[in-house]
């Protein structure tokens, strides 16, 4: 950095921007995602003329509530430097288990905690394998993926309709503000994201998650409880999987064992688009929220255009590519500075 005193206000402002960029370089990918999100929205509005309607924007949150919840849990895991491939299957398993328990006449007050607990147990299994048996997260969560998918089919081979009023209430109730509306599932997703962001930024546990992702050995030498943290992030991801299962079951009004095939990839893509580095140590829950919104907007734009949904994945793939190249450039630049 040049230590020359600069007099003109413009130069000072430029230097200030430079300093801000340097200090907050980890924020850049998330900000880039935000910019892309806004560009997408405005571009779609200009092109279609009726895109940014309250109805459409409300539906964006409603349709992607389960993805949002999964992305929050995934952010915790990825920031520790791990990965959780099991989320889609866990969502399918807890969703079908929830529908099946409700169909056999249990009350929602019992079924909902059991659903979430089911996700937590699979998360715990993955966490224990990763932490205490030195299994790579990829393989451990792969076992979780197979296990949850198989269990979903053990529960039922076909879809089960949900007729329980409490669970359907989650989806059918609409709190209206003029033309805007929000459902309890949407509120749940926003609350999960808010809690996730708070925990990551302001609690001892959240800061430990970053420390473990930055350098596990340093974190251990600092006396942080690495083992507990690493197990807990997978449990959190499992709990999020359970909640997503509940939300998806309410959303579709049925449990289906084939739900969420490939969702883990959508979630990872959304998290990466939101600025979280897969190497761990950097990332924001709010970034992942933006990532999910970008994903959801692309899906909506494509259905607006009447194009085939197979384009969604191509565009998400290309966008993912763009983001990793941008991230790569940022990493290379910060390495060069050192």
């Amino acid at each position, binding site marked *: 950095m040049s230590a020359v005193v600069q007099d003109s206000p413009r130069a000072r402002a430029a230097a200030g921007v430079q300093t801000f960029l340097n200090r907050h370089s980890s924020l850049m990918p998330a900000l880039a995602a935000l910019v892309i999100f806004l560009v997408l929205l405005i571009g779609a509005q200009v092109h279609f003329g009726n895109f940014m309607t309250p109805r459409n924007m409300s539906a964006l949150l409603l349709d992607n509530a389960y993805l949002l919840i999964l992305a929050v849990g995934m952010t915790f895991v990825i920031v520790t430097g791990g990965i959780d491939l099991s989320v889609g299957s866990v969502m399918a398993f807890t969703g079908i288990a929830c529908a099946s328990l409700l169909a056999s006449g249990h009350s929602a007050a019992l079924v909902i905690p059991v659903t979430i607990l089911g996700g937590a147990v699979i998360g715990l299994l993955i966490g224990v394998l990763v932490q*205490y048996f030195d299994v790579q997260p*990829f393989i451990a969560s792969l076992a979780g993926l197979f296990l949850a998918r198989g269990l979903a089919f053990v529960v039922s081979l076909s879809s089960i309709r949900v007729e329980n009023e409490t669970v359907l209430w989650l989806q059918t109730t609409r709190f209206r503000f003029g033309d805007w509306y929000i459902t309890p599932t949407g509120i749940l997703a926003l609350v999960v994201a808010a809690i996730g962001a708070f925990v990551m930024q302001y609690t001892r546990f959240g800061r430990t998650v970053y420390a473990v992702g930055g350098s596990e050995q340093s974190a251990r030498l600092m006396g942080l409880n690495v083992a507990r943290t690493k197990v807990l992030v997978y449990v959190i991801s499992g709990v999020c999987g359970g909640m997503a299962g509940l939300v998806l079951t309410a959303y579709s009004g049925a449990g289906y064992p084939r739900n969420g095939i490939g969702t883990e990839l959508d979630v990872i893509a959304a998290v990466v688009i939101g600025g979280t580095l897969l190497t761990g140590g950097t990332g924001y829950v709010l970034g992942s929220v933006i990532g999910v919104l970008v994903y959801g907007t692309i899906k909506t734009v494509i259905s607006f255009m009447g194009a085939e949904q*197979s384009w969604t994945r*191509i565009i998400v*793939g290309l966008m993912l590519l763009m983001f990793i190249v941008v991230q790569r450039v940022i990493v290379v630049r910060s390495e060069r500075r050192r």
Partner: protein
Amino acid sequence: VTQILKHRLFWPVLSLVALITLNTIARPQFVKITMREGELYGAPIDILRNSAPLMLVALGMTLVIATRGIDLSVGAVMAVSGAVTLTIIDGSATPGSTGTVLVAITVGIGVALVLGVWNGFLVAVLKIQPIIATLVLMLAGRGVALLITDGFITTVTSPPLKFVASGYLFWLPFAFFISLAAITVIALVERRTALGVLTEAVGINPEASRLAGVRSRGIILSAYVVSGTLAGAAGIIYSSNIMAADANAAGDLIELYAILAVVLGGTSLMGGKFTIAGTVVGVLIIQTLKSTILFLGVSSAQSPVFFAVVVIVVVLIQSPQVHRMARTITRRTQPHTAAEVRVDKEVAA
């Protein structure tokens, strides 16, 4: 005996033998091979034939994993190559001629090769993490395959194409010879030249091997190219088996089964030392397990539970923690040894 116990292939081979023995006890006709019109039939032959796509993909995956990488896109590449090949055959005037089929297969594998170059470019040149670099193609590839087939399942009638998966040569399925050829070529190139050692060097310590003058960029790139090409061939075998290009179902979850086969065979996901023989055994274990599950009358949709149990058992057997636990139990009389091992581990960590 300790030497046999310590051999890298001991556990994989033992698992395979145990699996086959269990099957034979449960149904003696399992190992029975019958000869009909100069062609062999039976459960073991089926396993050899049906394992061909997984075998090809797992061989490529072994090389990629040896360079500390991973290739998630193999399933999508299979879908693309199948879609390309069948669309060409479908669109040609003579779908039944061997020439058309050969051209179509060449183009299909060529496209897969280009996709492999793309993956290799992202990983080796742009230095993007392999898992995320190949995720791009994994997401986009199936979409591309769907666009090629217009969202339909393209079906063709073409005897030469059918021969690839269902034909027989010298009493044995032709698909088996494809996997045999792939195993032989890869084993020769990797083990009879320095390439295998260089690949391991890149995987064990990329920085040190670079300083030692190993051109890691080309080695990593070529691993992804081989993986892509083999996945392309696997996609054609798959399409030939069902005589259709199904962009959604082709190679579904195969990346996970291939990684599982590699890990079952004893190659670590951390890269470095790899074993072709181990991967072959790993693929056979998976295929035998699939046929066992089918025999048990379990719905194929529920079979993932069995695979989950197998994955967990195998990774636990390979886990150093479990080894140490077993050692402390068997060597209670010598508490010093166990303590020393623990100290070693802490030093290493």
